[in-house]
């Protein structure tokens, strides 16, 4: 470990190249960080230290497998939106977080008069029945009976390529996503 701390950090260009290289996926071989080090021109230990640092400072919020949830039988997803008095949003958002019944929960702006909901949750389930059951439980657990809400089930997913955003980089493989033209029916 002493080597880890004495080795200089990757420079900006190497870090940028590393960000790009790993966003398309970790190499699937026994020394993935060494493979990455060879791509970006650094050492294995520098790559390890750098990724650890990104996890610690929150640049990487999760590091691991990202699944295609439809393929795992999560065929229904609903965006559940709530019209919550502004002064209660924080309290209710916290309750929903604690419930463990949603996969995402964000506050977003209203767009009056077309859209009057300000809290957005995603509920994923095997089918619509399960999603609705989970929603009922959420309403009960978080005492949301009085709150106006709407459920937006999805019909079709047209495109999913995850949160990739780095453009092609001259020292790293392209991670730019290719649009999937074909719609996938799942609902």
């Amino acid at each position, binding site marked *: 470990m002493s080597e880890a701390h004495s080795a200089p950090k990757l420079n900006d260009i190497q870090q940028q190249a590393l960000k790009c290289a790993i966003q398309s996926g970790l190499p699937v071989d026994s020394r993935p960080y060494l493979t990455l080090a060879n791509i970006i021109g650094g050492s294995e230990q520098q790559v390890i230290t750098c990724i650890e640092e990104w996890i610690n400072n929150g640049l990487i919020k999760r*590091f691991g497998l990202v699944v295609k949830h439809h393929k795992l039988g999560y065929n229904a997803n609903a965006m559940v939106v709530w019209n919550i008095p502004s002064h209660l949003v924080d309290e209710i958002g*916290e309750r929903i977080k604690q419930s463990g019944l949603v996969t*995402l929960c964000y*506050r977003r702006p209203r767009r009056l008069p*077309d*859209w009057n909901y300000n809290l957005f949750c995603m509920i994923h389930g095997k089918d619509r029945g399960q999603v609705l059951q989970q929603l009922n439980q959420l309403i009960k657990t978080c005492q949301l009976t009085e709150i106006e809400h709407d459920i937006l089930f999805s019909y079709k997913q047209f495109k999913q390529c995850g949160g990739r955003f780095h453009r092609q980089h001259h020292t790293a493989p392209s991670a730019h996503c290719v649009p999937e033209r074909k719609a996938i029916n799942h609902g």
Partner: protein
Amino acid sequence: MDEIDRSIINQLQRGFPICERPYEQAAKALSITEAELINRIASLLEEKILTRFGPMYQIEKAGGAFTLAAMSIPEDEFDKVADQVNQFPEIAHNYERAHKLNMWFVLGTENPSEIASTIKRIEKETGYKVFNMPKLEEFYVGLYFPV
């Protein structure tokens, strides 16, 4: 997909070791060999059960930006407009949903100023208004799908 694949998916969605031999370390916890874990992850990727294997960035910290946006598209125009919208490389995913606002997509750009300009280009290209609904506060992100 068998029991071992399932435990790989359940365990490694939560995190992956960062050390010289990460597959070996993860394999130990799963009571399989390093080679088997590598082969199984490769197959899960090939079968497209996994979209990715690696980091999920906090995009704002990386200098980029994300937003959720919606449009209200007449049914007979929907497929045409969906095609137009999906042409934009900034679109991360796009769903048809049951509401007057029936098209919902996530935009990701390399810097925050590109969100507004991309929305303008989408409006110009399609002729329909885009409702931008950026995240104001994050209460919970727990995209974990046990199998």
